[in-house]
């Protein structure tokens, strides 16, 4: 039996058109203007752009900007039995509170934890003070609709909601993957935190092999469910809406995260000016050629 090599040669990677971090950083520096970064770093701005372009987003129930407005919270969530509280500048899913039961002054999370209004008030002031934003900058709070995951996720999702990452170069979708949270990622959909990336065939909207912790996998490690050959519903719509959003944001290299709601279909969650490179692993395919083609 031939022993599997522990590394790949640079020319092998090059012949497979793999994009390295150094090359990616160069490309980003060339096509992404720093001045446009706030459009993706601040979710409120991203949301506003989406709404202007009629790209569907989770419905915003309210925004809290200042500590003095915390009292408005009860008023905002008055008629919403379930909702999500999240920092506008947070990253990696930090600081998000999901409430699935709202009794007016008693809030329950899907895990069964119960918060009083005072608890919520404390957490909100922590977010406003910048606890979860990079470098501790003052932040804003978005209170928005809770997503009901699409039926196709039922067997794939563990502890969290999967999302779809699409990478666009000059407004053309060039690669896509489905990100599945796992036990190790603790419900978060970030690949470096242990989520699975599943490649999506761009033309068909069908999943192909996946990657977990930088290694290629074909089944979900927690549920043992097959992750290949899943058809993503409304694929055409997803592609056209990300393309529209990318044009409005104006960044030449962009990652857009989309979530599939059971009722409303695809919704844009957030955008990213420095999307990672693991998507190449998920698709078993390099980005380099696609980038130069778009150029």
């Amino acid at each position, binding site marked *: 039996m031939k022993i599997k090599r*522990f590394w790949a040669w*640079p020319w092998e990677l090059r012949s497979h058109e*793999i994009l*390295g971090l*150094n090359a990616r950083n160069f490309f980003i520096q060339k096509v992404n203007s720093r001045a446009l970064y706030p459009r993706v770093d601040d979710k409120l701005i991203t949301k506003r752009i989406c709404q202007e372009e009629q790209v569907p987003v989770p419905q915003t129930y309210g925004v809290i900007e200042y500590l003095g407005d915390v009292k408005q919270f009860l008023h905002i969530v008055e008629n919403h039995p379930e909702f999500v509280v999240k920092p506008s500048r947070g990253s*990696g899913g930090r600081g998000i509170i999901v409430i699935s039961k709202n009794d007016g002054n008693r809030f329950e999370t899907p895990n069964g934890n119960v918060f009083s209004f005072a608890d919520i008030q404390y957490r909100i002031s*922590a977010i406003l003070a910048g606890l979860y934003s990079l470098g*501790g900058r003052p932040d804003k709070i978005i209170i928005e609709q809770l997503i009901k995951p699409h039926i196709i996720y039922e067997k794939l999702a563990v502890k969290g909601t999967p999302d779809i990452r699409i990478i666009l170069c000059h407004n053309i979708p060039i690669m896509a993957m489905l990100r599945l949270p796992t036990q190790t990622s603790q419900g978060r959909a970030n690949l470096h935190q*242990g989520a699975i990336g599943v490649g999506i065939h761009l033309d068909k909207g069908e999943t192909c092999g996946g990657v977990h912790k930088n290694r*290629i996998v074909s089944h979900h490690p927690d549920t043992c469910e097959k992750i290949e050959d899943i058809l993503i519903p409304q694929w055409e719509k997803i592609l056209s809406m990300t393309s529209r959003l990318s044009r409005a944001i104006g960044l030449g290299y962009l990652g857009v995260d989309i979530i599939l709601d059971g009722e409303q279909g695809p919704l844009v969650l957030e955008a990213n000016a420095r999307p990672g490179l693991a998507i190449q692993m998920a698709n078993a395919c390099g980005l380099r050629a696609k980038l130069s083609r778009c150029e």
Partner: protein
Amino acid sequence: MKEQKLTIISAIFIALVAITLITWRVKSDLKAKLSPGESVWRLSYKVIINKAKAGMRLQMSLPRTSSQSRIFQEKFLRSGLLMDILRSQSTKRREAIAVALTDTEKIYFTAEFDIRLKPQNKPSMYKELLDANLQAKYLTKQKGIQAKSSNIKKILQKWRAQKLDKEKLADQIFQYCSDQIALGGESSSIDAKETLHQKIGNSLGKARAMVALCRAGKIPSRIAVGYVLEKTRKAKIHTWVEVYLENHWISYDPNYGYARQLPASYILVGYDYDKVIQVTGAKEWDYQISIEKLPVSPTSALSQTNSLLAVADLTRMPSEMQNAIAVLLLLPLGTLITVIFRSIIGLSTFGTFAPCLIALSFVYADWRTGLAIFLIVMFVGLSSRGLLNRLKLLILPRLGIILTLVVLCMVMGVSLLDYLELTPSARTVVLPIIILTMLVERFYISVEEDGIRSSLKMLAGTILVAFCCYSLLSWQELGLLAVTYPEAQLFIISALLILGRYTGYRLTELIRFRDIIAAKKEKP
């Protein structure tokens, strides 16, 4: 790829400039070595102390720089002794004081001074305004200088009649001492009165005789102590005379017959004391002074020109300053290493320059103290950070609290070491603390965001890069090279320019993406 070309061209250009500057410096240095009349000497003291008690104190007067001689390097080898150099502002005297902390059977203390001589035809005199008190001090009697003795006054009688002015009188006295009194061996008289009576004395005796005569003749004068740089196996301390005339100190050597102008080889150590080295608190001690001529000049040519160009020669600065400069000059090399580790090897570290700063802070501590500090800061920092996490504080106050706790622990630790009589130097402790506290915060955030595994990986990366930087920064020969050729920094800029355009794969990516290649091979 216009930028690519431009970058490479400028990198090559900068490297060429560096090469040109270095060649120019080396060439001018070679020329400097040939300049006539100049010489380089090494004066060394070797002190051997037997059965030293704790608190043993060694006091050593250091040679001084003059217009004709320059000490360009000082080295002290002091096994287990605590040492400091004291400068007296008023007398310009420099003294090294070394103290033993524990009882020691045998102590070797070596001091080396590299001196460059450039002979000039200038009178050995310099201006100093003395007030009446000081003038009086240089006129009174002293041990071995019996300025008030009647025998000495009698000798002066013969010049009284001539009504000489002070300058002429000093010259007469010098003539008398150098011609009429013979230079005896070490064992001959060291006393002015004795020497004048027996008409023979050793170098100290003759000098004292002249001083006594001058003082008796109302001319302020003093004994100068130092060395004459010449090829001898066993060098000894030499004494001569300085006479105060019209606000100037003027040198005379009645032993070797030099008046008003001394050769460059006279190196001054101090005035009016005969013990250059003193040891208290030890049973037996002995010392040896040696003088040797060094074959070539290790110093640069630039420093000899009095022009502004001398600024480009960093080796002319005092050795303590040079050590600090060396570390600073190696810092860019440290950043280059960090860049190589990050963008070519692909190791992730906490912060871009944190590893380099950690290394810098450890240069001032020895590695054992450094490691102890590292462990304490990490332990105290991480545990207090974990407790504070429950309180959900803002980042700056939280960092402040951690820093306070770390400082408290460190100070108590230092106090404990002191109690155990293992005092570490305070300077070594201060710098690492702050840098390491920042590291604690980053590590903790990373643990929360990316999990313990990848955080430990990053920590290992940080330590590895910090270690590489540390070995560079504490490499003394490299530091000396950096101080000698500061223009070599341009090479680093040019290397960074090239690295700044590197778009190839990182080494870790070759492992990370290996499965794509493997998968592709299986599929088709």
